[in-house]
Protein backbone atom coordinates (compact mmCIF):
# COMPACT_ATOMS: atom_id res chain seq x y z
CA UNK A 1 0.00 0.00 0.00
CA UNK A 2 1.22 3.52 -0.64
CA UNK A 3 2.09 5.16 2.68
CA UNK A 4 -0.66 6.91 4.58
CA UNK A 5 -3.47 5.08 2.81
CA UNK A 6 -6.31 3.80 4.99
CA UNK A 7 -8.33 1.70 2.56
CA UNK A 8 -7.87 -0.41 -0.54
CA UNK A 9 -10.25 -2.39 -2.71
CA UNK A 10 -10.93 -4.00 -6.10
CA UNK A 11 -7.54 -5.30 -7.17
CA UNK A 12 -6.74 -6.51 -10.65
CA UNK A 13 -3.81 -8.57 -11.91
CA UNK A 14 -2.26 -8.58 -15.36
CA UNK A 15 0.50 -10.92 -16.50
CA UNK A 16 3.43 -9.12 -18.11
CA UNK A 17 5.24 -10.21 -21.30
CA UNK A 18 8.11 -12.67 -20.90
CA UNK A 19 10.73 -10.04 -21.71
CA UNK A 20 9.50 -7.62 -19.08
CA UNK A 21 11.43 -7.35 -15.80
CA UNK A 22 8.11 -7.71 -14.00
CA UNK A 23 6.10 -10.91 -13.98
CA UNK A 24 2.90 -9.28 -12.94
CA UNK A 25 1.32 -5.90 -12.38
CA UNK A 26 -1.35 -5.39 -9.75
CA UNK A 27 -3.75 -2.44 -9.73
CA UNK A 28 -6.27 -1.42 -7.10
CA UNK A 29 -7.93 1.70 -5.80
CA UNK A 30 -6.73 3.24 -2.55
CA UNK A 31 -7.59 6.23 -0.39
CA UNK A 32 -9.27 7.12 2.87
CA UNK A 33 -12.26 4.91 2.01
CA UNK A 34 -14.24 3.72 -1.01
CA UNK A 35 -15.50 6.76 -2.93
CA UNK A 36 -13.35 9.14 -0.92
CA UNK A 37 -12.19 12.24 -2.83
CA UNK A 38 -8.55 11.21 -2.41
CA UNK A 39 -8.96 7.75 -3.91
CA UNK A 40 -6.42 7.04 -6.64
CA UNK A 41 -5.48 4.02 -8.66
CA UNK A 42 -2.39 2.34 -7.20
CA UNK A 43 -0.11 -0.19 -8.84
CA UNK A 44 2.76 -2.46 -7.97
CA UNK A 45 4.87 -4.83 -10.06
CA UNK A 46 6.30 -8.20 -9.05
CA UNK A 47 9.95 -8.15 -10.08
CA UNK A 48 11.21 -11.36 -11.67
CA UNK A 49 14.79 -11.04 -10.49
CA UNK A 50 14.18 -10.08 -6.87
CA UNK A 51 10.95 -12.11 -6.60
CA UNK A 52 9.39 -9.26 -4.66
CA UNK A 53 6.79 -6.59 -5.16
CA UNK A 54 8.05 -3.10 -5.94
CA UNK A 55 6.90 -0.19 -3.81
CA UNK A 56 3.34 0.73 -4.73
CA UNK A 57 2.85 3.86 -6.80
CA UNK A 58 -0.18 5.91 -7.69
CA UNK A 59 -0.74 5.81 -11.44
CA UNK A 60 -4.13 7.44 -12.00
CA UNK A 61 -5.43 10.54 -10.30
CA UNK A 62 -8.93 11.90 -10.87
CA UNK A 63 -7.76 15.48 -11.23
CA UNK A 64 -5.25 14.56 -13.93
CA UNK A 65 -7.88 12.50 -15.74
CA UNK A 66 -10.37 15.37 -15.52
CA UNK A 67 -7.83 17.85 -16.88
CA UNK A 68 -6.99 15.58 -19.80
CA UNK A 69 -10.63 14.93 -20.65
CA UNK A 70 -11.74 18.51 -20.09
CA UNK A 71 -14.53 17.35 -17.80
CA UNK A 72 -14.65 16.54 -14.15
CA UNK A 73 -14.31 13.07 -12.66
CA UNK A 74 -15.77 12.88 -9.20
CA UNK A 75 -14.38 9.54 -7.96
CA UNK A 76 -12.25 6.67 -9.24
CA UNK A 77 -12.48 2.91 -8.82
CA UNK A 78 -12.27 -0.63 -10.19
CA UNK A 79 -9.14 -0.68 -12.39
CA UNK A 80 -8.94 -3.39 -15.06
CA UNK A 81 -5.73 -3.79 -17.06
CA UNK A 82 -4.95 -5.44 -20.38
CA UNK A 83 -1.90 -5.63 -22.63
CA UNK A 84 -2.50 -5.22 -26.35
CA UNK A 85 -0.77 -6.95 -29.25
CA UNK A 86 1.97 -4.31 -29.34
CA UNK A 87 2.79 -4.81 -25.67
CA UNK A 88 1.22 -1.56 -24.53
CA UNK A 89 -0.81 -1.68 -21.36
CA UNK A 90 -4.36 -0.36 -21.29
CA UNK A 91 -6.16 0.51 -18.12
CA UNK A 92 -9.93 0.78 -17.79
CA UNK A 93 -11.05 2.65 -14.73
CA UNK A 94 -14.44 3.59 -13.36
CA UNK A 95 -14.83 7.36 -13.08
CA UNK A 96 -17.99 8.69 -11.51
CA UNK A 97 -20.01 11.75 -12.42
CA UNK A 98 -22.67 13.33 -10.24
CA UNK A 99 -24.49 10.58 -8.40
CA UNK A 100 -21.98 8.01 -7.18
CA UNK A 101 -21.28 4.60 -8.69
CA UNK A 102 -24.59 4.60 -10.59
CA UNK A 103 -23.36 7.66 -12.50
CA UNK A 104 -20.13 6.00 -13.51
CA UNK A 105 -18.40 6.03 -16.84
CA UNK A 106 -15.52 3.91 -18.06
CA UNK A 107 -12.29 5.81 -18.62
CA UNK A 108 -9.91 4.20 -21.08
CA UNK A 109 -6.24 4.98 -20.40
CA UNK A 110 -3.16 3.75 -22.20
CA UNK A 111 0.41 3.36 -21.05
CA UNK A 112 2.83 6.08 -22.12
CA UNK A 113 5.84 4.92 -20.14
CA UNK A 114 8.25 2.58 -21.91
CA UNK A 115 7.95 -1.14 -21.43
CA UNK A 116 10.13 -2.12 -18.50
CA UNK A 117 10.10 1.38 -17.03
CA UNK A 118 9.52 0.91 -13.30
CA UNK A 119 7.47 4.11 -13.22
CA UNK A 120 4.11 3.36 -14.82
CA UNK A 121 2.51 6.33 -16.54
CA UNK A 122 -0.85 6.45 -18.31
CA UNK A 123 -2.75 9.00 -20.34
CA UNK A 124 -6.53 9.03 -20.88
CA UNK A 125 -7.60 7.88 -24.30
CA UNK A 126 -11.20 8.86 -23.66
CA UNK A 127 -14.48 7.72 -22.19
CA UNK A 128 -16.06 4.64 -23.70
CA UNK A 129 -19.36 5.74 -25.30
CA UNK A 130 -21.80 3.16 -23.99
CA UNK A 131 -25.13 4.81 -23.34
CA UNK A 132 -27.25 7.65 -24.65
CA UNK A 133 -28.29 8.82 -21.16
CA UNK A 134 -25.28 11.08 -20.57
CA UNK A 135 -23.14 7.95 -20.91
CA UNK A 136 -23.98 6.71 -17.43
CA UNK A 137 -23.88 4.12 -15.70
CA UNK A 138 -21.37 1.57 -16.95
CA UNK A 139 -18.61 0.05 -14.84
CA UNK A 140 -15.83 -2.49 -15.19
CA UNK A 141 -14.54 -4.84 -12.60
CA UNK A 142 -13.53 -8.24 -14.02
CA UNK A 143 -10.66 -9.29 -16.27
CA UNK A 144 -10.84 -9.23 -20.08
CA UNK A 145 -11.02 -12.40 -22.17
CA UNK A 146 -8.09 -12.23 -24.61
CA UNK A 147 -8.70 -13.26 -28.23
CA UNK A 148 -6.37 -14.87 -30.74
CA UNK A 149 -6.39 -11.80 -32.99
CA UNK A 150 -4.72 -9.88 -30.18
CA UNK A 151 -7.93 -8.14 -29.22
CA UNK A 152 -10.10 -8.86 -26.21
CA UNK A 153 -13.56 -8.85 -24.74
CA UNK A 154 -13.91 -6.57 -21.74
CA UNK A 155 -16.74 -7.52 -19.36
CA UNK A 156 -18.69 -4.52 -18.09
CA UNK A 157 -22.09 -3.85 -16.58
CA UNK A 158 -24.83 -1.26 -16.29
CA UNK A 159 -26.11 -0.62 -12.78
CA UNK A 160 -28.56 2.29 -12.67
CA UNK A 161 -31.74 0.53 -11.56
CA UNK A 162 -31.38 -2.47 -13.84
CA UNK A 163 -28.16 -4.42 -13.43
CA UNK A 164 -27.22 -5.79 -16.83
CA UNK A 165 -23.90 -7.26 -17.97
CA UNK A 166 -22.36 -6.48 -21.34
CA UNK A 167 -19.32 -7.56 -23.33
CA UNK A 168 -17.22 -4.84 -24.96
CA UNK A 169 -15.07 -5.85 -27.92
CA UNK A 170 -11.63 -4.32 -28.59
CA UNK A 171 -9.18 -4.87 -31.42
CA UNK A 172 -5.50 -5.72 -31.11
CA UNK A 173 -4.52 -2.09 -30.57
CA UNK A 174 -7.20 -1.35 -28.05
CA UNK A 175 -9.73 0.35 -30.31
CA UNK A 176 -13.31 -0.08 -29.16
CA UNK A 177 -15.40 -2.14 -31.59
CA UNK A 178 -18.80 -2.54 -30.00
CA UNK A 179 -21.04 -3.92 -27.30
CA UNK A 180 -23.15 -7.05 -26.88
CA UNK A 181 -25.53 -7.64 -23.99
CA UNK A 182 -24.67 -10.78 -22.02
CA UNK A 183 -27.91 -11.48 -20.19
CA UNK A 184 -31.59 -10.55 -20.31
CA UNK A 185 -31.68 -10.61 -16.55
CA UNK A 186 -31.69 -7.21 -14.90
CA UNK A 187 -30.20 -8.16 -11.55
CA UNK A 188 -26.78 -9.60 -12.45
CA UNK A 189 -23.49 -7.78 -12.75
CA UNK A 190 -19.71 -8.05 -12.85
CA UNK A 191 -19.47 -10.85 -15.44
CA UNK A 192 -16.40 -13.07 -15.23
CA UNK A 193 -15.66 -14.66 -18.61
CA UNK A 194 -14.18 -18.10 -19.28
CA UNK A 195 -13.89 -19.90 -22.63
CA UNK A 196 -14.47 -23.65 -22.82
CA UNK A 197 -13.77 -23.68 -26.56
CA UNK A 198 -12.97 -21.03 -29.14
CA UNK A 199 -16.67 -20.29 -29.53
CA UNK A 200 -18.23 -21.55 -26.28
CA UNK A 201 -17.82 -19.05 -23.49
CA UNK A 202 -19.47 -18.67 -20.12
CA UNK A 203 -20.12 -15.51 -18.14
CA UNK A 204 -20.28 -16.17 -14.41
CA UNK A 205 -22.30 -13.43 -12.78
CA UNK A 206 -22.63 -11.80 -9.40
CA UNK A 207 -26.23 -12.05 -8.28
CA UNK A 208 -28.31 -9.20 -6.90
CA UNK A 209 -31.49 -11.22 -7.16
CA UNK A 210 -32.88 -13.61 -4.62
CA UNK A 211 -31.20 -16.87 -5.55
CA UNK A 212 -27.97 -16.34 -3.66
CA UNK A 213 -26.16 -18.33 -6.35
CA UNK A 214 -23.66 -17.50 -9.06
CA UNK A 215 -25.65 -16.89 -12.22
CA UNK A 216 -24.56 -17.98 -15.67
CA UNK A 217 -24.99 -16.87 -19.24
CA UNK A 218 -23.41 -18.70 -22.17
CA UNK A 219 -22.55 -18.06 -25.78
CA UNK A 220 -22.03 -20.71 -28.43
CA UNK A 221 -20.97 -18.36 -31.22
CA UNK A 222 -17.96 -16.52 -29.90
CA UNK A 223 -19.86 -13.83 -28.06
CA UNK A 224 -22.27 -12.81 -30.82
CA UNK A 225 -25.33 -13.95 -28.86
CA UNK A 226 -25.76 -14.93 -25.23
CA UNK A 227 -28.31 -17.12 -23.47
CA UNK A 228 -29.09 -17.31 -19.78
CA UNK A 229 -28.39 -20.71 -18.26
CA UNK A 230 -29.22 -22.42 -14.97
CA UNK A 231 -27.53 -21.07 -11.86
CA UNK A 232 -24.34 -22.69 -10.65
CA UNK A 233 -24.71 -24.62 -7.39
CA UNK A 234 -22.28 -22.16 -5.84
CA UNK A 235 -23.35 -19.57 -3.30
CA UNK A 236 -22.91 -15.87 -3.92
CA UNK A 237 -23.57 -13.19 -1.29
CA UNK A 238 -23.96 -10.44 -3.91
CA UNK A 239 -20.18 -10.27 -4.14
CA UNK A 240 -17.63 -9.99 -6.91
CA UNK A 241 -16.02 -13.12 -8.35
CA UNK A 242 -13.05 -13.83 -10.59
CA UNK A 243 -12.62 -16.52 -13.22
CA UNK A 244 -9.70 -17.60 -15.32
CA UNK A 245 -9.12 -20.18 -18.00
CA UNK A 246 -5.72 -21.84 -17.89
CA UNK A 247 -5.49 -24.33 -20.72
CA UNK A 248 -8.37 -26.77 -20.35
CA UNK A 249 -8.89 -25.88 -16.71
CA UNK A 250 -11.10 -23.11 -15.37
CA UNK A 251 -10.60 -21.46 -12.05
CA UNK A 252 -13.01 -19.47 -9.95
CA UNK A 253 -12.46 -17.40 -6.82
CA UNK A 254 -15.63 -16.62 -4.90
CA UNK A 255 -17.21 -16.16 -1.48
CA UNK A 256 -18.95 -19.48 -0.67
CA UNK A 257 -21.88 -18.02 1.26
CA UNK A 258 -25.26 -16.50 0.60
CA UNK A 259 -24.80 -13.78 3.18
CA UNK A 260 -21.19 -12.98 4.10
CA UNK A 261 -17.83 -12.32 2.53
CA UNK A 262 -15.81 -13.74 5.41
CA UNK A 263 -14.59 -16.81 3.49
CA UNK A 264 -12.93 -16.87 0.10
CA UNK A 265 -12.47 -20.06 -1.90
CA UNK A 266 -10.76 -21.18 -5.08
CA UNK A 267 -12.59 -23.74 -7.23
CA UNK A 268 -11.72 -25.48 -10.47
CA UNK A 269 -13.71 -27.00 -13.31
CA UNK A 270 -13.17 -28.75 -16.62
CA UNK A 271 -16.38 -27.48 -18.23
CA UNK A 272 -17.28 -24.30 -16.32
CA UNK A 273 -20.42 -26.11 -15.13
CA UNK A 274 -19.33 -28.52 -12.39
CA UNK A 275 -16.95 -26.87 -9.95
CA UNK A 276 -14.83 -28.42 -7.22
CA UNK A 277 -13.36 -26.48 -4.35
CA UNK A 278 -9.57 -26.84 -4.41
CA UNK A 279 -8.29 -24.30 -1.94
CA UNK A 280 -9.51 -22.09 0.88
CA UNK A 281 -8.00 -18.68 0.29
CA UNK A 282 -9.32 -17.16 3.51
CA UNK A 283 -11.47 -18.31 6.41
CA UNK A 284 -12.32 -15.26 8.45
CA UNK A 285 -14.38 -14.59 11.50
CA UNK A 286 -17.64 -12.75 11.91
CA UNK A 287 -17.46 -9.31 10.33
CA UNK A 288 -14.36 -10.02 8.31
CA UNK A 289 -14.45 -9.34 4.61
CA UNK A 290 -12.26 -10.98 1.98
CA UNK A 291 -13.66 -9.99 -1.35
CA UNK A 292 -13.26 -8.88 -4.94
CA UNK A 293 -10.71 -11.50 -6.01
CA UNK A 294 -8.58 -11.33 -9.12
CA UNK A 295 -6.75 -14.18 -10.87
CA UNK A 296 -3.81 -14.25 -13.26
CA UNK A 297 -1.44 -16.82 -14.71
CA UNK A 298 2.22 -15.80 -14.96
CA UNK A 299 5.58 -17.57 -14.77
CA UNK A 300 3.93 -20.99 -14.47
CA UNK A 301 2.09 -19.86 -11.38
CA UNK A 302 -1.43 -18.97 -10.47
CA UNK A 303 -1.68 -15.61 -8.73
CA UNK A 304 -4.60 -14.50 -6.64
CA UNK A 305 -5.23 -11.10 -5.14
CA UNK A 306 -8.18 -9.89 -3.11
CA UNK A 307 -9.35 -7.22 -0.73
CA UNK A 308 -8.39 -7.90 2.88
CA UNK A 309 -10.97 -6.28 5.17
CA UNK A 310 -11.02 -3.19 2.95
CA UNK A 311 -7.70 -2.12 4.41
CA UNK A 312 -5.18 -3.73 2.10
CA UNK A 313 -4.74 -5.98 -0.88
CA UNK A 314 -3.66 -9.54 -0.14
CA UNK A 315 -2.04 -11.86 -2.67
CA UNK A 316 -1.08 -15.50 -2.97
CA UNK A 317 0.91 -17.50 -5.46
CA UNK A 318 0.35 -21.16 -6.36
CA UNK A 319 2.68 -23.35 -8.36
CA UNK A 320 0.91 -25.45 -10.95
CA UNK A 321 1.68 -28.60 -12.88
CA UNK A 322 1.61 -28.02 -16.63
CA UNK A 323 -0.16 -30.32 -19.03
CA UNK A 324 -0.54 -30.22 -22.82
CA UNK A 325 -3.13 -27.84 -24.19
CA UNK A 326 -6.23 -29.50 -25.64
CA UNK A 327 -8.59 -26.89 -26.96
CA UNK A 328 -11.48 -27.87 -29.21
CA UNK A 329 -11.09 -27.52 -32.95
CA UNK A 330 -11.76 -23.95 -34.06
CA UNK A 331 -15.02 -23.46 -35.85
CA UNK A 332 -15.71 -21.51 -39.01
CA UNK A 333 -16.22 -18.33 -37.06
CA UNK A 334 -13.84 -15.48 -37.62
CA UNK A 335 -10.52 -15.80 -35.87
CA UNK A 336 -11.15 -12.56 -34.12
CA UNK A 337 -13.82 -14.20 -31.98
CA UNK A 338 -11.64 -17.01 -30.72
CA UNK A 339 -10.27 -16.62 -27.23
CA UNK A 340 -6.55 -16.79 -26.80
CA UNK A 341 -4.91 -18.98 -24.23
CA UNK A 342 -3.82 -17.08 -21.20
CA UNK A 343 -0.73 -19.19 -21.03
CA UNK A 344 1.26 -21.37 -23.34
CA UNK A 345 0.52 -24.43 -21.30
CA UNK A 346 -2.39 -25.75 -19.38
CA UNK A 347 -2.46 -26.87 -15.83
CA UNK A 348 -4.43 -28.87 -13.39
CA UNK A 349 -3.90 -29.52 -9.73
CA UNK A 350 -2.72 -26.76 -7.52
CA UNK A 351 0.15 -27.25 -5.15
CA UNK A 352 0.83 -24.36 -2.86
Amino acid at each position, binding site marked *: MPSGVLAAHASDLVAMPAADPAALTAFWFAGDRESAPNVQIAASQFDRSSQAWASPQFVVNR*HAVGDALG*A*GVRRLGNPVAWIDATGRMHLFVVGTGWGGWAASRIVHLQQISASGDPILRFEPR*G*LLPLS*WLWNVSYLVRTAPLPLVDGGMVLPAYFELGAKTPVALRFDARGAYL*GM*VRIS*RRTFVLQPALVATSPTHWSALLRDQGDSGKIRVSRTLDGGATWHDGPDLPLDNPDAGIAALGVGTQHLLAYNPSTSTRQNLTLASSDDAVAWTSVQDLERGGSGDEYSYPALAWADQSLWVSYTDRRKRIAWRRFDWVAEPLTFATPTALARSTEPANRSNSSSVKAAQ
Partner: protein
Amino acid sequence: MNFPDLWQTLTQPYAPLLPSAQSLVWARHAIWSLVLAALGLAWLRRSARSSKLLLGVAWLPALWAWIPGPWGIAYWLGLAFQIPSLVSAFLALYVLVHRKRNSPPQEALRSKWVFFWLWSALVLGAVLGLDTFAVFAFPVYPWGFGPLAFALAWALALLPWVVSGNLTLRQPILWSPCAAMALFTLTGWPTGNVWDALLDPWLWMLAVGCLLRQTWRRLA
Protein backbone atom coordinates in the same frame (compact mmCIF):
# COMPACT_ATOMS: atom_id res chain seq x y z
CA MET B 1 -27.44 -12.06 -49.52
CA ASN B 2 -30.69 -12.82 -47.70
CA PHE B 3 -32.40 -10.35 -45.42
CA PRO B 4 -31.11 -11.73 -42.08
CA ASP B 5 -27.54 -11.63 -43.38
CA LEU B 6 -28.02 -8.13 -44.71
CA TRP B 7 -29.55 -7.01 -41.44
CA GLN B 8 -26.66 -8.51 -39.47
CA THR B 9 -24.15 -6.82 -41.77
CA LEU B 10 -25.80 -3.46 -41.35
CA THR B 11 -26.27 -3.66 -37.60
CA GLN B 12 -23.20 -5.59 -36.44
CA PRO B 13 -20.67 -3.68 -34.40
CA TYR B 14 -18.29 -1.69 -36.53
CA ALA B 15 -15.16 -0.08 -35.26
CA PRO B 16 -16.55 3.29 -34.20
CA LEU B 17 -14.56 6.30 -35.32
CA LEU B 18 -14.24 7.85 -31.92
CA PRO B 19 -13.18 11.49 -31.82
CA SER B 20 -9.89 12.13 -30.06
CA ALA B 21 -9.92 13.21 -26.44
CA GLN B 22 -8.06 16.40 -27.43
CA SER B 23 -10.67 17.46 -29.99
CA LEU B 24 -13.44 16.78 -27.51
CA VAL B 25 -11.92 19.19 -25.01
CA TRP B 26 -12.45 22.01 -27.54
CA ALA B 27 -15.80 20.68 -28.69
CA ARG B 28 -16.99 20.65 -25.08
CA HIS B 29 -16.00 24.30 -24.58
CA ALA B 30 -17.54 25.43 -27.87
CA ILE B 31 -20.83 23.55 -27.65
CA TRP B 32 -21.52 24.35 -24.01
CA SER B 33 -20.66 27.98 -24.73
CA LEU B 34 -23.18 28.10 -27.59
CA VAL B 35 -25.89 26.41 -25.56
CA LEU B 36 -25.31 28.60 -22.51
CA ALA B 37 -25.31 31.75 -24.64
CA ALA B 38 -28.65 30.74 -26.18
CA LEU B 39 -30.08 29.98 -22.76
CA GLY B 40 -28.82 33.33 -21.48
CA LEU B 41 -30.51 35.18 -24.33
CA ALA B 42 -33.69 33.18 -23.86
CA TRP B 43 -33.65 34.21 -20.20
CA LEU B 44 -33.09 37.82 -21.22
CA ARG B 45 -36.04 37.75 -23.62
CA ARG B 46 -38.30 36.38 -20.94
CA SER B 47 -37.34 39.10 -18.51
CA ALA B 48 -39.33 42.25 -19.12
CA ARG B 49 -36.33 44.51 -18.64
CA SER B 50 -33.56 45.00 -21.11
CA SER B 51 -30.28 46.71 -20.46
CA LYS B 52 -26.63 46.40 -21.34
CA LEU B 53 -25.97 45.08 -17.85
CA LEU B 54 -28.51 42.29 -18.28
CA LEU B 55 -27.13 41.55 -21.74
CA GLY B 56 -23.68 41.23 -20.20
CA VAL B 57 -25.03 38.95 -17.49
CA ALA B 58 -26.69 36.79 -20.13
CA TRP B 59 -23.39 36.31 -21.93
CA LEU B 60 -21.36 35.50 -18.81
CA PRO B 61 -22.09 31.75 -18.70
CA ALA B 62 -21.03 31.47 -22.34
CA LEU B 63 -17.68 33.06 -21.54
CA TRP B 64 -17.38 30.99 -18.38
CA ALA B 65 -17.64 27.85 -20.52
CA TRP B 66 -14.33 28.72 -22.20
CA ILE B 67 -12.33 28.69 -18.97
CA PRO B 68 -10.41 25.41 -18.85
CA GLY B 69 -10.24 23.10 -15.86
CA PRO B 70 -12.21 23.12 -12.63
CA TRP B 71 -12.74 26.91 -12.76
CA GLY B 72 -14.76 26.56 -15.97
CA ILE B 73 -18.41 25.59 -16.00
CA ALA B 74 -17.97 23.26 -18.98
CA TYR B 75 -15.77 21.09 -16.76
CA TRP B 76 -18.63 20.57 -14.30
CA LEU B 77 -21.40 20.40 -16.87
CA GLY B 78 -19.28 17.80 -18.64
CA LEU B 79 -18.99 15.84 -15.42
CA ALA B 80 -22.77 15.52 -15.25
CA PHE B 81 -24.01 15.77 -18.84
CA GLN B 82 -21.00 15.22 -21.08
CA ILE B 83 -21.49 17.24 -24.29
CA PRO B 84 -24.81 18.41 -25.80
CA SER B 85 -25.81 17.04 -29.18
CA LEU B 86 -24.76 18.83 -32.36
CA VAL B 87 -28.43 19.57 -33.11
CA SER B 88 -28.60 21.40 -29.79
CA ALA B 89 -25.49 23.32 -30.76
CA PHE B 90 -26.92 24.41 -34.13
CA LEU B 91 -30.29 25.34 -32.65
CA ALA B 92 -28.39 27.46 -30.12
CA LEU B 93 -26.38 29.00 -32.94
CA TYR B 94 -29.60 29.93 -34.71
CA VAL B 95 -30.92 31.60 -31.57
CA LEU B 96 -27.72 33.64 -31.37
CA VAL B 97 -27.59 34.63 -35.02
CA HIS B 98 -31.23 35.73 -34.99
CA ARG B 99 -31.11 37.09 -31.45
CA LYS B 100 -33.09 40.21 -32.29
CA ARG B 101 -35.97 38.26 -33.76
CA ASN B 102 -38.77 36.86 -31.65
CA SER B 103 -38.42 33.18 -32.22
CA PRO B 104 -39.62 30.64 -32.78
CA PRO B 105 -42.75 32.10 -34.43
CA GLN B 106 -45.85 30.10 -33.71
CA GLU B 107 -46.56 29.46 -37.39
CA ALA B 108 -43.13 27.88 -37.71
CA LEU B 109 -43.81 25.60 -34.78
CA ARG B 110 -47.06 24.55 -36.44
CA SER B 111 -45.24 23.47 -39.61
CA LYS B 112 -45.88 19.84 -40.37
CA TRP B 113 -42.14 19.24 -40.78
CA VAL B 114 -41.36 20.74 -37.42
CA PHE B 115 -44.09 18.56 -36.00
CA PHE B 116 -42.50 15.60 -37.76
CA TRP B 117 -39.10 16.35 -36.23
CA LEU B 118 -40.51 16.84 -32.76
CA TRP B 119 -42.24 13.47 -32.94
CA SER B 120 -39.11 11.86 -34.37
CA ALA B 121 -37.11 13.24 -31.47
CA LEU B 122 -39.71 12.05 -28.99
CA VAL B 123 -39.72 8.50 -30.39
CA LEU B 124 -35.95 8.27 -30.78
CA GLY B 125 -35.31 9.57 -27.28
CA ALA B 126 -37.92 7.24 -25.79
CA VAL B 127 -36.36 4.24 -27.54
CA LEU B 128 -32.83 5.20 -26.51
CA GLY B 129 -33.92 5.97 -22.97
CA LEU B 130 -35.65 2.60 -22.60
CA ASP B 131 -32.67 0.92 -24.26
CA THR B 132 -30.42 2.38 -21.59
CA PHE B 133 -32.31 0.31 -19.04
CA ALA B 134 -32.10 -2.86 -21.16
CA VAL B 135 -35.80 -2.96 -21.94
CA PHE B 136 -35.22 -4.35 -25.44
CA ALA B 137 -33.71 -7.73 -26.30
CA PHE B 138 -30.88 -6.12 -28.29
CA PRO B 139 -29.09 -2.89 -27.50
CA VAL B 140 -30.12 -0.06 -29.80
CA TYR B 141 -27.50 2.50 -28.84
CA PRO B 142 -24.55 0.60 -30.43
CA TRP B 143 -26.37 0.69 -33.80
CA GLY B 144 -25.55 4.38 -33.77
CA PHE B 145 -21.96 3.46 -34.60
CA GLY B 146 -22.96 1.50 -37.71
CA PRO B 147 -23.64 2.44 -41.33
CA LEU B 148 -27.37 1.73 -41.18
CA ALA B 149 -28.05 4.35 -38.52
CA PHE B 150 -25.73 6.79 -40.26
CA ALA B 151 -27.57 6.41 -43.60
CA LEU B 152 -30.94 6.55 -41.88
CA ALA B 153 -30.01 9.73 -40.04
CA TRP B 154 -28.90 11.42 -43.26
CA ALA B 155 -32.09 10.32 -45.01
CA LEU B 156 -34.25 11.67 -42.18
CA ALA B 157 -32.29 14.92 -42.11
CA LEU B 158 -32.92 15.48 -45.82
CA LEU B 159 -36.48 14.16 -45.83
CA PRO B 160 -38.31 17.51 -45.56
CA TRP B 161 -36.65 18.88 -48.70
CA VAL B 162 -36.88 15.64 -50.67
CA VAL B 163 -40.54 15.02 -49.93
CA SER B 164 -41.75 18.61 -50.16
CA GLY B 165 -39.64 19.48 -53.21
CA ASN B 166 -39.34 22.88 -51.59
CA LEU B 167 -35.72 23.92 -51.21
CA THR B 168 -36.71 27.13 -49.45
CA LEU B 169 -37.74 25.48 -46.20
CA ARG B 170 -35.84 27.52 -43.64
CA GLN B 171 -37.03 26.67 -40.19
CA PRO B 172 -33.91 26.14 -38.06
CA ILE B 173 -35.35 23.03 -36.56
CA LEU B 174 -35.26 21.55 -40.08
CA TRP B 175 -31.73 22.47 -41.14
CA SER B 176 -30.15 21.86 -37.76
CA PRO B 177 -30.16 18.06 -38.25
CA CYS B 178 -28.52 18.50 -41.69
CA ALA B 179 -25.82 20.74 -40.28
CA ALA B 180 -25.36 18.37 -37.35
CA MET B 181 -24.99 15.40 -39.68
CA ALA B 182 -22.46 17.28 -41.80
CA LEU B 183 -20.37 18.17 -38.76
CA PHE B 184 -20.74 14.67 -37.36
CA THR B 185 -19.54 13.21 -40.66
CA LEU B 186 -16.44 15.39 -40.49
CA THR B 187 -15.59 15.14 -36.80
CA GLY B 188 -17.52 12.31 -35.16
CA TRP B 189 -18.47 14.65 -32.32
CA PRO B 190 -19.50 14.20 -29.62
CA THR B 191 -18.98 10.43 -29.22
CA GLY B 192 -18.77 8.84 -32.66
CA ASN B 193 -22.36 7.66 -32.21
CA VAL B 194 -24.91 9.28 -34.54
CA TRP B 195 -27.68 9.17 -31.91
CA ASP B 196 -25.58 11.40 -29.64
CA ALA B 197 -25.04 13.84 -32.52
CA LEU B 198 -28.76 14.15 -33.18
CA LEU B 199 -30.31 14.11 -29.77
CA ASP B 200 -29.31 14.53 -26.14
CA PRO B 201 -31.58 13.96 -23.14
CA TRP B 202 -32.07 17.71 -22.53
CA LEU B 203 -33.07 18.29 -26.16
CA TRP B 204 -35.42 15.33 -25.92
CA MET B 205 -37.07 16.92 -22.89
CA LEU B 206 -37.39 20.19 -24.80
CA ALA B 207 -39.05 18.36 -27.70
CA VAL B 208 -41.46 16.65 -25.34
CA GLY B 209 -42.22 20.03 -23.73
CA CYS B 210 -42.92 21.62 -27.13
CA LEU B 211 -45.27 18.79 -28.10
CA LEU B 212 -47.11 18.95 -24.79
CA ARG B 213 -47.44 22.71 -25.14
CA GLN B 214 -48.85 22.40 -28.65
CA THR B 215 -51.24 19.68 -27.58
CA TRP B 216 -52.39 21.78 -24.63
CA ARG B 217 -53.00 24.79 -26.85
CA ARG B 218 -54.98 22.72 -29.33
CA LEU B 219 -57.11 21.30 -26.60
CA ALA B 220 -57.60 24.75 -25.12
